[in-house]
């Protein structure tokens, strides 16, 4: 059994705001839910499955189902893998639809860290068994990714200028996105001249911190058939945690080495078939390792791969994150997985910003990396296809 073609993404909505100091997280969840269901041409009364992660206030989605007034939810899933959660939600929704548990699934994300809101739970890290052996040493989020970048540089000769190319491509795309938090194109030199946050990562190697959110509607193909929007099918999905491996941690690869092949096999395609990629970009190193791990280039060759405009839309060899990504556009609630799926849907519908729309975009990949490259992560790969 497979989820290939078992479900379609019928609605996708990204909150247009990036600074939202005046509303609760629950309200932002509601705003994106309404936006996505309207995009699909459905009603919230049609929703029979609800998916959310640790950013949702309350108890595992129960509070949000009440807030939204959903009355016929029969599939409830609060899978939490940090920023990649929403890709797993799409896959789990497709699986639930495939076995007949539901027909219209709503997935929401919201947060307001820019305005000083409480950081999303991210699981019970305070009580995590590894915490006593890590937290006292002054961990920071950039620091954990910097450890991965440093080791990648040591083993493969990757340079800061190569990492900067990833930011340059993202900023090139963001200039065409009127909602992007940072719209100014930057050069490699400007990335390298930005303040060092945690060596070897500069400030411009890091994603933005924004309020906002997004939502998706995943439906049975029979439901999608009656809707007016372009059809985007779920073709394959893979998910895998990667962790410290009993202290033998290897910082040079991510869980994408596991999730990618599963997704490609299910979709029956190879990396060469992909027209557009949304790659989780909490930091530039996250993108570089993920591209290698998904097989777009050899392990260790990511630095050379991203040079010469490879990632720049519309004519680069592998256009990525055409909304500007988490690096420039939006990283709502410190979680970038939702916006990765949304931009992939836009590309497949032909609704990306015109300057960065990939011509004849038929197959797209979205990848999420929750947790940290430097310790443990939840990786998720989703392959989507346009259906005419």
């Amino acid at each position, binding site marked *: 059994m497979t989820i290939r073609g078992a479900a379609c993404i019928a609605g996708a909505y990204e909150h247009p705001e990036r600074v939202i100091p005046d509303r609760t997280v629950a309200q932002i969840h509601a705003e994106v839910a309404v936006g996505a269901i309207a995009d699909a041409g459905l009603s919230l009364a049609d929703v029979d499955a609800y998916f959310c992660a640790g950013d949702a206030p309350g108890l595992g989605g129960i509070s949000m189902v009440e807030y939204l007034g959903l009355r016929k939810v029969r599939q409830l899933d609060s899978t939490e893998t940090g920023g990649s959660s929403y890709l797993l939600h799409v896959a789990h929704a497709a699986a639930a639809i495939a076995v007949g548990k539901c027909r219209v699934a709503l997935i929401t994300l919201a947060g307001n860290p820019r305005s000083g809101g409480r950081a999303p739970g991210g699981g019970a890290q305070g009580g995590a*068994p*590894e*915490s*006593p*052996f*890590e*937290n*006292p*040493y*002054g*961990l*920071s989020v*950039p*620091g954990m990714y*910097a*450890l*991965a970048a*440093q*080791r990648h540089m*040591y083993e493969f000769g990757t340079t800061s200028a190569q990492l900067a190319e990833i930011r340059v491509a993202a900023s090139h795309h963001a200039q065409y996105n009127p909602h992007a938090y940072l719209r100014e194109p930057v050069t490699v030199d400007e990335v390298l001249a930005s*303040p*060092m*946050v*945690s*060596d*070897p*990562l500069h400030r411009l190697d890091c994603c933005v911190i924004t309020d906002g959110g997004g939502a998706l509607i995943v439906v049975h193909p029979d439901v999608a058939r009656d809707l007016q929007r372009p059809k985007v099918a779920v073709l394959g999905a893979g998910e*895998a*945690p*990667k*962790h*410290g*491996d*009993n*202290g*033998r*941690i*290897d*910082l040079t*690869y991510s*869980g994408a*080495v*596991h999730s990618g092949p599963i997704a490609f096999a299910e979709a029956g395609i190879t990396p060469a078939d992909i027209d557009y990629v949304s790659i989780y970009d909490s930091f530039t190193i996250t993108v570089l390792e993920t591209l290698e791990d998904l097989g777009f280039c050899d392990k260790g060759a990511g630095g050379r791969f991203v040079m010469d405009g490879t990632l720049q839309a519309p004519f680069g060899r592998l256009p990525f994150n055409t909304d500007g990504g988490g690096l420039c556009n939006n990283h709502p609630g410190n979680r970038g997985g939702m916006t990765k799926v949304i931009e992939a849907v836009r590309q497949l519908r032909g609704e990306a910003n015109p300057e960065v729309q990939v011509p004849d975009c038929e197959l797209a990949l979205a990848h999420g990396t929750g947790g940290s490259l430097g*310790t*443990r992560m939840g990786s998720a790969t989703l392959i989507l296809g346009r259906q005419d």
Partner: protein
Amino acid sequence: MTSMPTPAPYVTPDAAAYWHAAAEGRLLLRRCDECATVIWYPRPFCPSCAGSSTSWVEAVGTGSVYSFTITRKGQGAYREAGPYVLAYVELDEGPRMLTNVVDCPVDGVRVGQRVTAVFHDTGQGTALPRFRPIGADEIPAVEIAAVETAVDEPAVGG
């Protein structure tokens, strides 16, 4: 040299011996009685063979820097610390542990550098194992017989 903050760890019953030994200047490691795997982070369960019979052994206390970063501005207890080095040190027994490299300029740390453990008292009966570079005039560490099991395949959890 900045003086590093030394926040006390949360001590769980199964790791009390580890933290108390650190306060006495000793680095303990948990080892599986069944398969001899050195376990990291310490826990009374072997993630290699699922055995639950494990014991403390004393580490030599030397290793090399697997990766490092200079955190320019810390958070929480480290907010006023100034730049400091966060690192993975690969112990000569095998495990790579998160720690700090201290007692040297922050821009003097390199991947592969040999280091030895130092213990910073938390004032609460425990200490944090950290590492300092081994000077050229010091006796090099004895090679430790590898006791870890092969890890050819990247492991997946769950």
